[in-house]
């Protein structure tokens, strides 16, 4: 579900794939936390292009990683959010802490604009 992550300077870009439920959440959480042990990462972009489904388990995962990143003064962005994901994210108030962008490139530009 994970694997092909990328670095752009202090930005970590991770594509999430499949379905983010309770079963997958544990794996995603461990994977992200291992990558985030690298203290030179300041911002996180989660690309949701290939994520088809999430439930409240995903909310927990996003909030947890936001806590880590915000301690570093960084931002967490999500990109390519489908309708189902949007509904869950909106309902849970997650857009107050996560920034939504159409594409990964827009998210990178957005982060660079804010934090020069």
């Amino acid at each position, binding site marked *: 579900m994970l694997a092909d992550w990328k670095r752009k300077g202090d930005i970590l870009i991770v594509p999430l794939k499949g*379905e983010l*439920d*309770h*079963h997958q*959440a*544990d794996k995603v*959480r461990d994977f992200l936390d291992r990558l985030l042990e690298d203290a030179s990462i300041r911002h996180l972009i989660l690309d949701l292009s290939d994520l088809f*489904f999430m*439930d*409240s*388990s995903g*909310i*927990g*995962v996003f*909030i*947890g990683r936001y806590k880590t990143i915000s301690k570093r003064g960084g931002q967490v962005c999500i990109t390519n959010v489908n*309708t*189902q994901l949007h*509904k*869950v994210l909106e*309902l*849970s108030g997650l857009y107050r802490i996560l920034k939504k962008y159409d594409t990964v490139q827009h998210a990178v530009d957005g982060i660079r604009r804010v934090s020069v």
Partner: protein
Amino acid sequence: MKVKNEMRLEFLSRSQNESFARAAVAAFAAQLDPTLEEITDIKTAVSEAVTNAIIHGYENPNEMVQIITRIYDTYVEIEVIDHGKGIEDIELARQPLYTSKPELERSGMGFTVMETFMDQVEVISAPGQGTKVRMIKYIGNEERETERE
């Protein structure tokens, strides 16, 4: 109203069954010819109730979760049942952001998701007896509303 069709499903309280359970209910409910959004709403709500049965109801992977789905003319009724530890204060449990397991990064939004995505949610539960979540979703409402206009 008369039941048009009924399906019962039982599976072990293991997290890998969550995706199977929501897909099975969605496939069964497809008989009512729902929109893609209605199907996704049902999937999400079932995922919440099943996850709750597994992590809060049982807290172990060797018990049975049961789902009963009934199709009526205009709606689908879904019951998710566990015989686990039950809920002491149902009103508190249903409040947005209330969770008894913050250490597991739960957000306390499960019941809120169910209530938002389904038309009716009823919780029947008692400590030591288990929990039944009964949900109803009307299918094809919008169409009928525009017909009436």
